[in-house]
């Protein structure tokens, strides 16, 4: 049974990798590539957030702040202080992880939804800093002139080159998440969601695991933020406001809590949707709210799994032959 799932998962990963390689060759429209790059960045954030929400059952409304921390740390350290870009991406992840630890440690020790409140407050504070510390961050008008990432002489300065860069990272984030989910740690996280008390009496240090997965998900967001900053080469506080936090939580729920591929699916679906609704930005927020509500009421397992089980129910029903009278 398990080996079967594993084999199928590997097959899906191979198809996914092939799609990443082939898409830029097949798709020549630059706009589509840009949208897919945004999907890739969101996928990294959402895959990490899904580990927290879908597996450990803890909710964060502050992932825009961690995404923003990654972006601003990379931008400021490389542009203002001349740090080398690649090590700075790692450094930003470590710093963001430490910040997440200090936010998560006290609030996760308390029972109940204190993490939601703490992360909500934290993300607002971070956004205020981005706006007000204009000497360092550029303030509301943003931070320009960030260098592109490069490997040797290859500079990731076009949308197509960044496609490969972003999706390589997205691929490895998905792979790492799949590894984690099918492991001792992944089971312990699911157990926390299933019954925290039972998990604890079986030897799982539930407080520590919750903090650790929160830190891990913040580091995923930081990585995406750094990639974003080096790709667009301009960032502003508006990219990292509270609305983005809501959006990534919505992606997790729409994609299906507790499914790594669901996270990718949710990120794709909602990124495309918000692109379509871009003309009327106000409707965007309303649409997100309506989708979130509808999914939670009618498809609580997420859109993909929900539609799949609806299909299965339909298939079973069509197999039942009505009783015949002799």
């Amino acid at each position, binding site marked *: *049974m*398990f080996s079967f799932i594993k084999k199928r998962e590997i097959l899906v990963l191979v198809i996914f990798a092939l799609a990443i390689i082939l898409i830029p060759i097949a798709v020549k429209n630059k706009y589509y590539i840009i949208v897919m790059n945004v999907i890739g960045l969101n996928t990294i954030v959402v895959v990490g957030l899904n580990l927290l929400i879908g597996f450990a059952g803890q909710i964060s409304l502050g992932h825009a702040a961690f995404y923003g921390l990654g972006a601003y740390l990379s931008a400021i350290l490389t542009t203002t202080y001349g740090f080398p870009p690649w090590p700075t991406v790692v450094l930003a992840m470590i710093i963001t992880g430490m910040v997440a630890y200090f936010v998560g440690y006290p609030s996760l020790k308390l029972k109940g939804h204190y993490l939601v409140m703490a992360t909500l407050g934290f993300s607002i504070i971070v956004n205020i800093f981005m706006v007000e510390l204009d000497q360092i961050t550029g303030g509301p008008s943003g931070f320009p002139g960030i260098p592109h990432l490069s490997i040797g002489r290859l500079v990731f300065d076009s949308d197509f080159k960044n496609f490969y860069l972003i999706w390589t990272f997205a691929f490895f984030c998905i792979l*790492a998440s799949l*590894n*984690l989910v*099918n*492991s*001792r*740690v*992944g*089971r*312990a996280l*699911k*157990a926390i*969601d*299933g*019954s925290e*008390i*039972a*998990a*604890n*009496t*079986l*030897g*799982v*240090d*539930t407080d520590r695991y919750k903090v*650790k997965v929160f830190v*891990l998900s913040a580091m995923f967001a930081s990585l995406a933020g750094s990639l974003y900053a080096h790709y667009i080469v301009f960032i502003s506080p508006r990219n990292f406001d509270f609305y983005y936090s809501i959006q990534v939580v919505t992606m997790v729920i729409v994609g299906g809590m*507790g499914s790594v591929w669901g996270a990718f699916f949710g990120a794709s679906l909602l990124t495309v949707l918000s692109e379509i609704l871009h003309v009327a930005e106000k409707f965007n927020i309303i649409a997100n709210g309506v989708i979130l509500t509808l999914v939670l009421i009618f498809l609580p397992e997420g859109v993909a799994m929900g539609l799949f089980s609806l299909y299965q129910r339909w298939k079973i029903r069509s197999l039942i032959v009505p009783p015949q009278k002799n």
Partner: protein
Amino acid sequence: MSYSDVILRVEKVWKEFGGILALYDVSLDVKRNEITAIIGPNGAGKTTTLNLITGIYPPTSGKITFEGKVISGLKPFRISAQGITRTFQNLQVFQNMSVLENVMVGLHTQTQSEFLSCLLHLPRVKKEEKTVKEEGYSILRFLNLEKKGHWLSSGLPYGEQKRLEIARALAAKPKMILLDEPAAGLNAKEIDEMSELILKIKEMGISIILVEHVMNLVMGISDKIMVLNYGQKISEGTPKEVQRDSQVIQAYLGKG
């Protein structure tokens, strides 16, 4: 009785919840490799006693020692590492996981892989996964659940969910297991099977504390019984001694 015969010692334990005394100066010695039952009317403090032993909350005063080491005040996961696991009166099966995965969580303390090695799926993790899976299946086989290993645990019938909780607790290789009403809601045949199972666990060299209302079961297999009423110990002894105790009869049947 020498000291080493006693595996768990509860000494003058009190527990207060917002001004209400749930346990009142309770002491209990649990002997190694025996079945010790705790009985009493509803609200007598039986589950509270188990919660104190497993560290769900600390006692207001008093001391609990396990193999000579003080465990009262420790967090549940630390106490379980000492070798005490339990089942729950209201089932706490991980409904979101498969039957096998439930048991694999029980093996958590037997394994080491942490976040980084799991993310990278190091060869060490691979090896550990394999042994954990085999171990998990062998425990499921012991409890006659191996055919349903890949089932989502919420799909199991009630009686099997109860067995799964025991499987999960046994997976942690405990020295002592606490069973909170394992026979509640079971039919006569299932109760017989449960009492056989508990005896088998005893044969494995595991000490047992049993909280139960089904008297046939308790009287049939217990080595020692403690009777609680309104948070106080009112009697203690062998099944025969307890059955004859006038205070116990009064607590259960009222004054004659």
